[in-house]
């Protein structure tokens, strides 16, 4: 069974990059274009891991984490935050909201897969 990833990012470029890397690595890839759509899609997709951008229209990444963590059933799903900065305060804030980890943009294939492995155990 493939590991299901729900990626939430308003940048088409980043979505395509994620799709290319993840599909090649054997993940099942789903994406949403903003936080609101991501949260709406969540129960349909029922992902094993969520990757979300921070700066997005409608609902930002922190909002996504809060909404997902706010419901009992999702309280354990790993959520990785995509960020361009590796600033400690941003990580702290994401973690405070309940993020599992982070992926620093620009990411390469190896670090993306490595991050997913550490939170899902899956190589694919």
């Amino acid at each position, binding site marked *: 069974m493939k590991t299901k990833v729900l990626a939430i990012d308003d940048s088409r470029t980043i979505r395509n990059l994620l799709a290319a890397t993840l599909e090649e690595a054997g993940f099942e890839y789903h994406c949403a274009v903003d936080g609101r759509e991501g949260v709406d899609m969540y129960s349909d997709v029922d992902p094993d891991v969520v990757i979300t951008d921070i700066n997005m229209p409608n609902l930002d990444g922190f909002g996504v984490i809060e909404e997902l963590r706010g419901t009992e059933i999702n309280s354990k799903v790993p959520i990785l935050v995509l960020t361009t900065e590796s600033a400690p305060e941003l990580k702290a804030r994401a*973690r405070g909201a309940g993020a599992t980890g982070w992926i620093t943009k620009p990411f390469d294939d190896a670090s993306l897969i490595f991050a997913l492995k550490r939170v899902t155990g899956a190589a694919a």
Partner: protein
Amino acid sequence: MSGSIQDTFFEECEELLEATDEGLTAIEGGDHNPEVVNAIFRAVHSIKGGAGAFGLDDLVAFAHRFETVFDEVRSNRLDLDEKLIQLLLRSSDHLSALVEVARDGGQVDEAHHDTLLAALDEYIPEEEEDLSFEPMGLGGPTPVGDLGGFAAAPVVPQEETYRIRFHPLKEMYGTGNEPFFLFQALRDMGELTVTLDENELPGFDAMDVNDSYLAWDLVLVTKEPRSVVEAVFEFVEGLCELSIVGDHDAEAEANALAALDAMFSAPPADGAALPDPSPEVDSGTAAAPFEPPVPAPEPEATPASAVEKASAPKAESGKQEQRGGPKPTLRVELERVDRLINAVGELIINHSMLAQQIANLNVADLRDVETELEGFKNLARDIQEGVMAIRAQPVKPLFQRMARIVREASAATGKTCKLVNEGENTEVDKTVIERLSDPLTHILRNAVDHGIEKPEDREAAGKPATGEIRLSASHRSGSVCIEIKDDGAGVNRPRVKQIAIEKGLIPENAELTDSEIDNLLFMPGFSTAKEISNLSGRGVGMDVVKNAVTGLGGRINISSAPGKGSTFTIILPLTLAVMDGMVVSVADQTMVVPITSIVETMRGSDDMINNLGADGTLLSIRGNFVPICDVAGALGLYRESEQQAGVYLLVETETGQRCALAVDDIHDQRQVVIKSLDGVCGEIPGVAAATILGDGKIAMILDPESIIAASPTAAAFDTERRLSNAS
């Protein structure tokens, strides 16, 4: 794979830059709505994110500063004053330039780049200035902390045994981190033994389900460097008690220090200082091989159970792109649309061939067939219009780019002017939009450079200090009208005339109407700049603009009022794929003349023809003389029959010069599909393109301007006319 994704990135950049421009324009207009600021921030941020993925470092660095300043604005730590807005506008322009360079190659104006960076930095508080944008190294994850610092010296991968003590705090479980997965990641690096330490586990009564009692002792034998081992625990740093001790830590540190010492004391050090590769692998640990830790009294469910949930419906794929924009759109490769356009063109040709063949059948009653044929024709037209609409794009992005041209030109000339855009949603064929960019740029630079006066002069003339240039687009009876109107000084006619005389373009005593003087601007080799300014100069004149417009099948006019400003009007066909043409025959050949250039058609009689010089002839039309230009002669065709050219097409060139094109006969007026000759044969003087007629034959589409330009009679007459005007 990155090729197509990179294309996506540049496409997306266009949209994001557009959004940035649009937002900044709104801000410039006084709209300081936080959502506008947020939208710009996100756009710039996305550009940065994408650029990072493709290693476009200049773009990343610049976008980062730009974004940081915006973040300050967003957090209300900076006021959007006029000075900052101007800086942001220029930064946005520069960002576009950087994207262009990244996409098309070329050079960035480095001085400008540095100036802007420095100007942006002034708005960034000290502690934010650190550009902590860390591109991921080749190996991947960024090391956590710098424990064991010097161990980073060049090391041949050697096995090391790490003893890891891992004790999660209860907070860790709230973040979705799972010890089991961390251990799996470690196991992939080498040989791992895991020992569960449950000594802290209290009695059942005392147990708090939300607390964390378990700890693990791990022994990992791996060739991976320490940084990679540490990286496994990156996400739980601070959420656990963690210690990682390598068996060779002390040794490695000593070696690294020795290496450093050696470097400083004896500069040309040879390899002797490298750490001693003595892998004393300690394999004597008596722990059991890897076993998944039994999450015995683990209070919460593991996410692994999620895998067992029912598979999700796949409904989301279709709705991905729908949000955010007002209407759903479909992205299609341009080539597919062009193929469709081509096919529709063939369909129209096919229709006329069919109609012609049916007409040739000599069937008595064709009424039903004709009705059906008419229906066919209308449907083909509908399809054609539909396809044309696909290629049509609003001029908005083009117009928005022009705002930047005006800003740059204003800055370079020390003038202040603003560009007001109107009719941005007017749709024009994509190719037309692409090819309009250069002429518009040139006209706008000219308008700023020569049209708009310096602020003090404007005030002296009782005008607002800031000049205004109005760029508008509208549809006008089957064509597109682009107007560039400035409120500057207008054409300096005495000066223009003087220059034209100095350059020998007109005789000294020429008497020209105002409009004729204005049109001198379009003559090749004309440039009013006293010295070539680095702005609109560049050695190209308005003649290049005119050629570009006529190359699109359009026309350009200028009108000007002294002290009030000038207006350039560009009239363009809606599409480049079809046009209305007059089908004529010339020396037994069928040809097409664009309707747009024809003023009048007439049959000539001998008494209308007058001789001029040895070979020239003039046509007398209602008391006026117009030079006759024989198309057959101009194209080098010979008539086999005795038939003479007896039909005249009166055409007018852009400079107002009139000429009668002599052809043998006029057949029809119809819409023809333009087929480019590019790549089929070289440039033929006098021929613009070709088309396929109803009978399947190829017909050349003539270019009246170039035929007239090559005609000695027309040239001689034109000089004559100017001289007679002068006397």
